[in-house]
Each structure stands twice: as C-alpha cells, then as structure tokens.
C-alpha cells in the first residue's frame, strides 16, 4: 500500500468507530427514549465479568446483557493475580461497593495468551504475566501430560486456568467476607467456544471450593 493509501485506511477504520457509535446511540434512543437518562443515573450491575482481552469475546454481546448489567475487567488470559492491584481493585469495588451477586471468570478455547505462555521463548514484559499460566500447568502437570493431542491439552489447560482463577477470586477478603455476611457473590467458571459461540459452565462447586481454601486462606475472622 502506498503511504497515502495507508493513511486513508487508518482514517477510515478510526472514523468507522464514530460512525457506528452514532448509529447505535440513535437506535437505542429510538427504541427506549429514557435509556441514556436512566443509565446516567447510576449503575447497579448483578455481574462482575473477568474475561480475556481477546477481541472475539465481548461480554455483553455474547451474553445478551445490556449496558448497566455487567461490570467488566478484561486482561490477557483472564488472570487473577494476588499482587495485581488492577484486578484486585476491580474485585474490591464490584463486591464491596456495587455488591454484585455473581462473579464470572470466563476463559476461551484457543486462547493466544495460554499458547504464548507455553512457548519456550523470552517475551519480555509479558513474561511475568504469563508465568502464572505456567504455574497452573505445573499444578496439573500429571493430568495435562497424559493428554497426547496438543489442541486437547491446550483446551484442558484453558479450563484448568479458569478454575484456578476462580479459586484466586475466592481467596480475596472481599469475596470471603461478603459471602459470610450476605451469601453472595457466587463465583462461576465459564469457557467460551468459538466453533459454536456457546458458553460452557464448568459447574464449579463454589461453596466447597470456598470451604477448601479457607483452611489456609481464611480472611473472615
């Protein structure tokens, strides 16, 4: 592409965003004239969604939840790391201030972050972040090593990563204390599949997991 064409192309892709936004705002306003006024009054979401940054998994689009219904954090490979103040602030705010009823950790098959984490390469600033996925592998080394087919092994790692991140959510003081007092939030682990567009519920036994981790991680007393 000539330089002029490139700059035209860039302008188009950027302007397309504003064009689409104008169309969307107009359509919402026509469908429900009070929509934006009500939104600006405040938020009262039932969900906290912790998902992957991957462009193919916009939380609201795939779940049909409207603006105002899900508080959202998305990062590389939907990780919940105990020293990451970014995600810890999100959980704290969602549980203690918004009092969400459900926390969903949603991973997806074919996750590029999970693949990158298992590549024997130095990826610079990505190393410390992706290291957490290698740790998940180490925790489940036997089970994963026993899966001969590569794609199936990655897919299982994606599921195990979601379960582990759910466990990390449950370890937080905010979740433990809120559940002890109010019986919410409930933590769920889901995996999104691109082949059919469907969400799979990993059916994590939240109360059992909470009881198990509290032997060591109890922060409620």
């Amino acid at each position, binding site marked *: 592409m000539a330089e002029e064409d490139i700059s035209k192309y860039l302008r188009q892709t950027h302007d397309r965003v504003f064009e689409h936004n104008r169309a969307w705002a107009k359509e919402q306003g026509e469908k429900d004239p009070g929509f934006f006024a009500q939104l*600006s009054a405040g938020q009262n979401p039932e969900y906290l969604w912790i998902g992957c940054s991957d462009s193919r998994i916009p939380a609201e689009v795939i779940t049909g939840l409207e603006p105002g219904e899900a508080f959202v954090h998305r990062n590389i490979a939907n990780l919940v790391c105990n020293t990451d103040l970014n995600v810890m602030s999100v959980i704290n705010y969602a549980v203690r201030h918004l009092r969400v009823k459900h926390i969903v950790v949603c991973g997806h098959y074919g996750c590029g972050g999970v693949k990158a984490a298992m590549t024997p390469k130095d990826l610079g600033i990505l190393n410390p972040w992706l290291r957490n996925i290698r740790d998940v592998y180490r925790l489940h080394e036997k089970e994963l090593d026993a899966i001969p087919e590569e794609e199936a092994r990655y897919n299982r790692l994606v599921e195990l990563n979601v379960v582990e991140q759910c466990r990390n959510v449950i370890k937080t003081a905010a979740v433990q204390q809120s559940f002890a007092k109010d019986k919410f939030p409930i933590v769920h682990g889901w995996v999104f599949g691109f082949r059919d567009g469907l969400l799979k519920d990993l059916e994590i036994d939240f109360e059992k997991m909470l009881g198990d981790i509290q032997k060591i991680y109890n922060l409620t007393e």
Partner: protein
Amino acid sequence: MAYANDQDTFLYALSSNNAWAGYKSHQNPEFFPKLASGQSPKILWLGCSDSRCPETTILGMQPGDVFVHRNIANIISPTDINTSAVIEFAVVYLKVRHVVLCGHSACGGAAAALSDSRVGGVLDTWLTPLKAVRNAHREELQAIRDDKARAIRIAELNVQQGIDVLMANATIQDAIEERGLDVHGVLFDIGTGRIRDLGFGTRKDGGRGGSPDEVVRGRHATLVFRGGNASMKVNR
C-alpha cells in the same frame, strides 16, 4: 428474597448466549468458523470497567473487532503489569492500528478522586494517579460549580494523563515510529451514548478539523469525509 431473582438473571445470561449463538450461526453460517480461525482486531480499547460502557456494543462493532482492557476509572499506570501486558500483546503481536483510551461521564472513580474521604482496601492505592490529577488541577476543578460537569472535566484530564503515559510507553513509541500506530483519547457520554474525540494522542487536531472534503472510492461504496463527519454512499 432477592436471591431467587438474581439466579434468574444468571440463567438468563446463559440462555441468552444460547439464543445469540443460534441466531448468529443461522444468519451467517461462516461467523463462528471464521472467529475460531483467529483474531485480527484493528483497535485496542482501554476503558473503564463500568457496566454502562460496553465497548463493542457502544461502538456498534462485532466480536473480533476490538481487543479490550477495562479497569477501574481507565487509569493507565506506567508500572501496572496487567495493562502493560495487554498493550504489549495487542501492539506487538496483534499489530492493532489504533489505541483508544476512553473515559466517561458519571465515573465512580472520578467521584471518589474528587472527594476527600478514603474508599478503602486496595482502591485508594489504585486511584492514586487520579488523585494526583485532581491535585494538579485543584483550582480549575474547584471553580466548576456543577458536580456532573466537574466529574466530566476530571475524566477528560484523566484521559489526557493516560495518553501521556501511553505516549511514553516504549512499545507504543516504536509502533508509532515504525508503522504509524494511532493513539486517541476519547470520552463517552453516558447521558447521550455518544463518544467524543478529545484530540489527544497522535492526532492533536482531533481529526481532520477544517480540511476540505476527501473522497475515498472503495469496491462497493464511496466514503466522503467532510469536517469531522464521514458518510457513505453505495456505488451503483
């Protein structure tokens, strides 16, 4: 008690996904197979976790179009490993064309930063950069009488500060130099649903400004850029 209803909302999300997936594949049988083959988003969106700012929805875009990081008050901290990893992955490996940092009106984080009370837990630490913005612009912010307008002004200043951090990021600097990556600061007005380009970042004029009309003929349509607007005509 309220719990039974909450469980209904939860089941709604799962069943709604089922309906959406069915509708999408009926409408376009190639949709999911194409998604499964990989992603090549053009936009990295850095926005607020606020439930009223679902990026793909408000942009009127589709799954596969926007790579996303959302945190409390869309704060960009230079040493935050979470955001840094997202930027690295999106800019170096996915080679997005645009980085869009989006603030919004009525932001709870902005309100917290404007107040003198503590939020509690890790939040006060996370909000420190926003508090610093408030302190740096204390007089200007104090002079604004209307609470909503003051919250919008600090949200704008927060985006400006975030853009400064992004422009100082080595990965972003390299991509601007090597392939003309664009960095934009915008504000979403929850009261109207509109996004406004604040003109920060790589395009200081916030768009084309007063430049003359520009016509781009594509294979199926013709785009006309006029002032800050674009329109499209289908070719006959």
